[in-house]
């Protein structure tokens, strides 16, 4: 397996979406190709960092304000369009 072939399967590999045979081919490539090992490892870390980052969490006060705005708009919509309610 060549490095670019490995790269094409990287997403499936990280997602565990490969059949056993293809996975073992990729594992074998990783065992001797340090470059691909590092790319694979740092890509996995990239995903984990973003997943754990809590980058755009909704603050509680804003959350309450938004929900009350949504629900009052829904109530207004229900009144103006009884068929929908």
């Amino acid at each position, binding site marked *: 397996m060549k490095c670019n072939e490995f790269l094409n399967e990287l997403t499936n590999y990280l997602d565990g979406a490969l059949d056993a045979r293809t996975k073992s081919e990729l594992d074998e490539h990783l065992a001797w190709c340090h*470059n691909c090992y590092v790319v694979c490892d740092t890509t996995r870390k990239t*995903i984990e960092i973003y997943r754990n980052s809590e980058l755009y969490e909704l603050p509680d006060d804003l959350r309450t304000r938004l*929900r009350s705005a949504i629900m009052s708009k829904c109530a207004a919509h229900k009144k103006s369009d009884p068929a929908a309610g």
Partner: protein
Amino acid sequence: MSTIQPNIEQPVSEEMQLVRRAKRGDTQAFEELVRRYDRNVFRIAQHITQNREDAEDVVQEAFLKAYSNLEKFQEQSKFYTWLVRIAVNEALMKLRRRKPERTVSLDEDVKTEDDSLPREVADWSPNPEQMYNQAELRDILTRTIQGLPAGFRTVFVLRDVEGLSTEETADALELSIPAVKSRLLRARLQLRDRLNRFFQKKASGDGDQ
């Protein structure tokens, strides 16, 4: 090497019960759906728009649109996937209004300058969390994802941050599964490449180029 697994598993039946109650006019049931997904919708919206006010608008507009179109929801997919589709469309519309000079579309084939194998291959060690404090790390992550094309950001946030499956992401974005996979691969590699500039450089100490 460990694999990345989606982190959201919602019991469909309970969600559908709420949806059906909401369809019959039970606003409390709809409010429960809002509580359940408002944080997700906000995260997705802010990832796409990269603007806090726009993200707030998207949350309101997406839920209102879902409410007023509830009878059109066919129950063939999860309510959440349907809601995400509405939210993504609202967010992309905001982005188009804000950046009219640039085409923002999920359908355009986003070409990258170079999809070949990354050349810089030093590992990130110590872990980025140990190299930077929380505020620095947030700043790096925000600036890095902002630089990604909107079509890539959208696929990445749905698949990797929110944990939707490839099929659900394809459904929410009305893209084919190969298109989702291709965008996801390029999004992941571009983010990795950009983060590498921060995480590798510091790890290499005085070996700066």
